[in-house]
């Protein structure tokens, strides 16, 4: 099984895995469909927003995890890892899943759920997987 590291991502077999803490993940690339898994390793709840830049020039889409109990993610993830160990959200990009289509995760924002600013939130671990395997995986460095 081939395994190599591309910037912040590890490619293993037919799954592209991005594994970096939320505080360090700045941008990445994946194919038309990918899955984002956020693991909260602490016992504190966080608000998280992932912003994705699309190659078609449309405004970035934001994928939000909110601490609100009305949000389905909060209903399953209340910040205590043993109760809801991980949450998975699939972010679909509209349009044909061309092999050379790239999706950039441009920003990862996180903060404690009390809205206070200045907290790194690096207790969160973000894993990105892509299926099917993209022909080309690249990372833009800004």
């Amino acid at each position: 099984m081939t395994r190599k590291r591309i910037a912040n991502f590890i490619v293993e077999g037919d799954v592209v895995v991005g594994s970096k803490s939320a505080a360090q993940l700045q941008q990445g690339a994946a194919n038309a469909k990918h899955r984002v898994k956020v693991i909260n390793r602490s016992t504190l709840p966080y608000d998280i927003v992932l912003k994705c830049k699309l190659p078609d020039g449309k405004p970035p889409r934001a994928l939000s995890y909110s601490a609100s109990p009305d949000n389905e993610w909060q209903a399953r993830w209340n910040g205590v890892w043993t109760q809801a160990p991980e949450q998975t959200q699939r972010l679909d990009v509209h349009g044909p899943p061309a092999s050379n289509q790239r999706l950039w995760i441009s920003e990862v924002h996180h903060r404690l759920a009390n809205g206070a600013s200045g907290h790194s939130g690096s207790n969160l671990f973000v894993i990105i997987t892509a299926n099917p395997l993209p022909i080309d995986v690249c990372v833009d460095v800004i």
Partner: protein
Amino acid sequence: MLMCQHAGATAGASMVRIADEAPTRAGTWLTFEQSGEELYALVHSSDEEPEPGVTVYWPAMRSPSRFLSFFDVASKRVTDRSDRLSFERRILFDRDSGEPQDFDGSEESFDLADFIRLERISVGAEGNEHPILVAWANLDSGGGPEIPVDAGGVLFQPRHLRGLLQPLSDLIATTSFEMTAIGDIAAMLGELDAYLRPDSDSRKYEAVG
């Protein structure tokens, strides 16, 4: 703002005050302050658990062995002899893959990890698991200009706080970038205990303003 004073405190002694009390859907966020030191806590809201937990958190420096020592002491103090089964789970998260794995607590294992999580789990009559003690630490924090206030924390049940007060005060005082006065920390934890159990005889409130 309430000024809180434990019964028996000496006249002129610095008093603990609640600098912030913010209820949210996730729970009530608290900041206790004394002599310029601040202690942060979250009283978790929960509809599922019989007793919502409390997380005390602080800007902890990389010190996995101290968290381990604390857990060794604290785990025994929260174990209910009447019991209900309970067990421990000690996990480190690999720095590269992020995958959780059990560890033996050796110094060598810490080199591979950027996060540790130590748990005491109680098992209910129906087999449901409930954490009664969790100590966690981000081992990669504190290396940059920003010191994250959520770098380390301990979750516990309010009824256990008195038994944990001394070892928790010691843990915070020896691992915090900001709080080092163990007496002040103990006083703030004592005030947290009074806040969580308002029917306790040890508390006396004096309204200000």
